[in-house]
């Protein structure tokens, strides 16, 4: 049985300027694998990720024929059940650690908070577990980081702390929304490697949301390509370069390449029928 199954997911917003459909009938299922969701801004990829945790603020509305996680109906679940799922069962890593860590709390306190409140661990036990998590994300001097405030960490370090925090409760599913786009290329590679190793070692499901096709191709097993709130193509990551859909092809072709020609880059011709 699959870990997560989603059928005909829709997210819409009623605004002053009329109704906006951000996600329009997305269906997929996920086992303990790495699934990439790619698309440009406004394609609904982030909304899809948030809808899974029912983290859409009003006036946004979620509707689906089915949204089931490990036998639990996410649409019917009470807010209390959802709270018990968010974190321990399904975790989410956001784009920018600056906005996801509490700026006035030491990293150590933030890491141990959940352990002490939820799992009722003693102070030394929680500390040891947090330290272990920091070592798992390859932070070299975990004791110093435990004592630091978020602003004292670099971007890459902050994102590692975020990943450590999300992985402490050992969730079954990790949703990573552009986890590395705020980072430099060399740091990006390291963070992805860490994330990859942890996901493999613990056998989690991973939904990796990104705008970067090349990154997703390298890092995931399967890729969903979204355009205007719909999935236009689903394919194995290794076949990405042989994508059939003109949108996916266009996205790949319009990237500049080192040593490429100086002529104009091919632009993406959008076809109205893709959004159908």
């Amino acid at each position, binding site marked *: 049985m699959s870990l997560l199954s989603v059928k005909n997911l829709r997210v819409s917003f009623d605004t002053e300027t009329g109704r906006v459909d951000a996600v329009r009938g997305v269906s997929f299922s996920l086992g303990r694998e790495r699934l990439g969701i790619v698309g440009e801004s406004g394609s609904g990829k982030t909304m899809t990720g948030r809808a899974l945790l029912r983290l859409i603020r009003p006036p946004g509305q979620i509707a689906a024929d089915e949204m089931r996680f490990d036998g639990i109906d996410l649409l019917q679940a009470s807010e209390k059940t959802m709270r018990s799922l968010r974190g321990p069962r399904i975790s989410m890593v956001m784009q920018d650690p600056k906005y996801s860590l509490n700026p006035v709390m030491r990293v150590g306190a933030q890491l141990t908070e959940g352990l002490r409140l939820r799992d009722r661990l003693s102070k030394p036990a929680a500390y040891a577990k947090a330290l272990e998590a920091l070592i798992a994300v390859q932070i070299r001097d975990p004791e110093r980081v435990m004592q630091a405030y978020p602003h004292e960490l670099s971007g890459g370090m902050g994102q590692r702390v975020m990943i450590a925090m999300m992985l402490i409760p050992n969730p079954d599913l990790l949703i990573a929304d552009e986890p590395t786009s705020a980072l430099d290329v060399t740091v990006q590679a390291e963070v992805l490697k860490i994330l990859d190793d942890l996901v493999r070692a613990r056998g989690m499901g991973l939904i990796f949301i990104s705008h970067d096709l090349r990154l997703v191709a390298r890092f995931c097993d399967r890729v969903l390509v979204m355009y205007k709130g719909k999935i236009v193509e689903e394919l194995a990551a290794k076949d990405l370069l042989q994508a059939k859909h003109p949108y996916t092809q266009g996205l790949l072709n319009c990237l500049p390449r*080192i040593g490429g020609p100086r002529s104009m880059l091919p632009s993406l011709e959008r076809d109205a029928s893709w959004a159908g």
Partner: protein
Amino acid sequence: MLIEIENLSVTFTAQGKPLRAVQEVSFAVAAKSAFGLVGESGSGKSTILRAICGLAPISGGSIRIAGETIRHDRAFSRQVQMVFQDPYASLHPRHSIDRTLSEPLAIHGLPLSESRIQQALTDVGLPANFRFRYPHQLSGGQRQRVAIARALMLEPKILLLDEPTSALDASVQAETLNLLSRLRAERGLTFLMVSHDLAVIDHMCDRILVMQHGRSVESLSRQALASGQMTTAYARSLFAASADRMLPP
């Protein structure tokens, strides 16, 4: 050489402690060429652009444009303009496109004509009826086009580009880079461009300076970059991390 930068140092004071953002960097940019600065965040590449504009304190060295040491006066703003990284932050949220584009003309007492604004919009590939829209009614790529149009209103010779496409989607990035290339060819502009993306820099620039921790590491020609002929370890590691941006064999 149109832009000559010699031993430039920029020092900020952060909480009483001096922070040396740029240390003794020198390079020169020929007229009508495009020069790229590459490096990771904190390498000081954007600070150099801000120092040229007078937005960062210069603590040593000199910046000369067309042989003269720069003075930040009105004449300077008709010579050098800048396009910022984040199109969501670089347009005034309460000014319409019309106001944003007519502001530079008003500052310099130039005649404000309808056709001038419409022409500016057409030049950057925006429909003329966008004129009275507000930034929040535009997409990221459209905003960046407005920012480029604004920078070109005063017809400068030099355009400083601070990561102009890093906040944009791939397809929009391609369109924006094409627009910049076209404008450079049409108007004989000189570009000084900052990016962390080697592929973008390679596509746009003739010469490249690799920076790290506020210092220049290595200066490369475009050919040397494409063929991977770096001499320093740091430039090589940057190149290796961009392996997926290479031309497929």
